[in-house]
């Protein structure tokens, strides 16, 4: 069985990350850096040589688990995930904390596992690996606020994961089939058991796709993550959700409305936002909105657009996070009200960030132009004019914030006299590679189109399309400079649906405090009389028996048990971070057991 996963035809790219991650602590210095880069490159080449087909099928209890379902759709997502893995690892190669590298490896490995999963159970397992590993990228920032953000992040994803699991179980009980299949959801609420199953599965997915009101975890956690962790997070969670949505519910109309709302919602919050990385996080919601809407439309052209856009989005959004991350790393803050005038000391970082900004704004000859326009044009051709106009409006908003507001207030604006230098060589190298991809995909777009799941009949570079885009973008720029005073950043935070979590928790505590008192005073005493005392009594008897009967030869065993329990004491730290780590370790053991079992 093990031989199947290690044959030459199909090497699961996840395996490189999941197994490779275990050996990171064994290496030091340059060798470790080389090792991590090597593993990520190997995973990429595993995708390159991978033929289409079904691999890695294992019987586990009465279920059939499929780890390697390879077709055009899964392959194009695997390409971008592994490319992003390489770029991200270059960007973060200087990080000293092994735990952070480990979390990254499991996060990337999890996303690849979801991509190639052929059944819902495998998908769910890797889905949870992603949640439990990525939360460490938030916690490793090690500030009190990031610990809190991490817990809220985990809360959202555990809740979403449980809803997904409920849907999967229901689907299994109805059909007796766990394989991933097309289960579109129509309308706004479930009408029978089958539609309830797909409804729950869709809800599980859209929590990860950050569809409001379930999307507040994204702008909450990403700016709280480490400089390098946020680069990875911007790429994987939402895009695996988009991938899952394409697989299971392309053509579900409610996604069109959700997607358009997302696209606008992200833009509105971006106006209010002062933290550069949180602003970009809101723009992830906006950009994923295009994808969710495209999945909802579900035509071949729209799906092509969604996949192309996810591909380009991962590259330019990570580039933007790398640029602003470099500013945070070198200047110590990402708040626009505390930044300004950095063009004198960090001009190269500025160029890379602007390239990311022009790409996300779909400027001609940058990657967004060849990808976003497919989806938007699909709405035009479907004569859904309202959605088409709303997405064009969001495009203007995207350029306004990511292309203009972020670079202007960081590198120009009011000079704050910060003496931040260009970031270390590896961070800059990663940004150069990201920039080359952004321009390269905009120019050599045919090679991207060849990877898309359906044949492409779309030509982005027509005179009218270029001209329409240039007009929108340049007149947005005019508006920006005319209204610059109004747009000046304010030192505030914006309330989102995580308000209910944060304030709700307070209310819940206030409500449960009297209950806790009852529990402590009343139930505690009952417990003492009914359970503790009799148990202690029995224990006393045993102790007497013990001291009388047990002879010295057993003392050695006792010492061993003592030593063991001292070790066990450390496991029971009471810190959820440690429990989460144990859960991830348990998952690895589970996977190994499944593979080794005959």
């Amino acid at each position, binding site marked *: 069985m093990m031989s199947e996963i290690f044959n030459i035809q199909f090497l699961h790219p996840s395996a490189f990350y999941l197994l490779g991650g275990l050996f990171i602590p064994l290496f030091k210095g340059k060798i470790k850096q080389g090792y991590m880069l090597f593993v990520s490159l190997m995973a990429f080449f595993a995708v390159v040589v991978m033929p289409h087909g079904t691999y890695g099928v294992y019987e586990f209890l009465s279920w059939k688990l499929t780890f390697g379902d390879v077709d055009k759709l899964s392959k194009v997502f695997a390409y971008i995930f592994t490319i992003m893995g390489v770029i991200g690892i270059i960007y973060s190669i200087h990080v000293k904390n092994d735990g952070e590298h480990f979390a990254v490896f499991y996060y990337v490995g999890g996303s690849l596992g979801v991509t190639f999963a052929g059944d819902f159970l495998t998908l769910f397992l890797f889905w949870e690996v992603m949640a439990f590993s990525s939360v460490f990228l938030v916690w490793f920032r090690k500030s009190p606020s990031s610990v809190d953000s991490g817990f809220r992040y985990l809360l959202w994803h555990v809740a979403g994961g449980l809803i997904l699991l409920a849907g999967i179980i229901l689907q299994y009980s109805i059909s007796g089939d766990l394989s991933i299949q097309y289960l579109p959801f129509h309308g706004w609420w479930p009408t029978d058991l089958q539609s309830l199953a797909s409804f729950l599965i869709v809800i599980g997915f859209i929590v990860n796709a950050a569809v409001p009101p379930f999307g507040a975890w994204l702008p909450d956690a990403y700016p709280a993550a480490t400089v390098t962790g946020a680069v990875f997070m911007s790429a994987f969670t939402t895009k695996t959700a988009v991938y899952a949505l394409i697989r299971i519910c392309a053509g579900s109309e409610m996604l069109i409305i959700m997607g358009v709302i997302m696209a606008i919602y992200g833009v509105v919050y971006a106006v209010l936002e002062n933290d550069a990385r949180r602003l970009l996080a809101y723009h992830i919601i906006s950009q994923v909105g295009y994808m969710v809407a495209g999945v909802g439309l579900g035509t071949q052209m729209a799906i092509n657009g969604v996949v192309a856009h996810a591909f380009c989005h991962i590259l330019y959004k990570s580039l933007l996070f790398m640029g602003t991350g470099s500013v945070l790393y070198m200047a110590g803050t990402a708040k626009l009200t505390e930044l300004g005038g950095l*063009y004198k000391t960090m*001009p190269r970082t500025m160029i890379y960030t602007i390239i990311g900004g022009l790409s996300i704004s779909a400027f001609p000859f940058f990657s967004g132009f060849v990808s976003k326009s497919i989806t938007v044009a699909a709405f035009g051709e479907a004569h859904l004019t309202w959605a088409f106009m709303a997405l064009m409006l969001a495009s*203007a908003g995207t350029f306004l914030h990511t292309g203009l507001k972020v670079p202007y207030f960081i590198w120009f604006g009011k000079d704050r006299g910060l003496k931040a230098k260009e970031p270390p060589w590896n961070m800059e190298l990663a940004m150069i590679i990201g920039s080359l991809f952004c321009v390269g995909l905009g120019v050599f777009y045919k090679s991207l189109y060849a990877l898309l799941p359906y044949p492409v009949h779309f030509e982005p570079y027509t005179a*009218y*399309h270029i001209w329409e885009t240039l007009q929108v973008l*340049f007149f947005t720029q*005019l508006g920006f400079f005319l209204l610059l005073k109004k747009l000046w950043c304010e030192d505030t935070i914006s*309330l989102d649906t995580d308000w209910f979590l944060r304030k709700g928790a307070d209310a819940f505590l206030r409500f449960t405090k009297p209950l806790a008192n009852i529990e402590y005073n009343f139930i505690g005493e009952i417990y003492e009389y009914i359970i503790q005392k009799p148990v202690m009594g029995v224990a006393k008897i045993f102790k007497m028996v013990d001291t009388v009967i047990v002879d010295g030869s057993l003392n050695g065993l006792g010492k061993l048990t003592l030593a063991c329990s001292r070790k066990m004491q450390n496991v029971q730290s009471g810190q959820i971070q440690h429990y989460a780590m144990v859960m991830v370790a348990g998952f690895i053991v589970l996977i190994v057991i499944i593979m080794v079992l005959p």
Partner: protein
Amino acid sequence: MKLLDIIEVLRTKAAKRIAYGALILLIVVDFIIPRHEVHFFGDNIRGFWSLFGFIACVLIIIISKWIGHLGLMQDESYYDE
């Protein structure tokens, strides 16, 4: 240092004038550019996307700020209290 010089040139008044000239050029050329098949009313109006871009930008800024000041924007210590 060459990169810095280029940035400084782009910050001069002359560069600004060229940019305004480019805006006018954008609208003028829109009158002669060939159109693809018409999908909605805006495709027939010359300079439609210029107007759209400008109005979109102004609306986004004004409406978002208005919503923000209704209560969405709070002091940074809001959740600490």
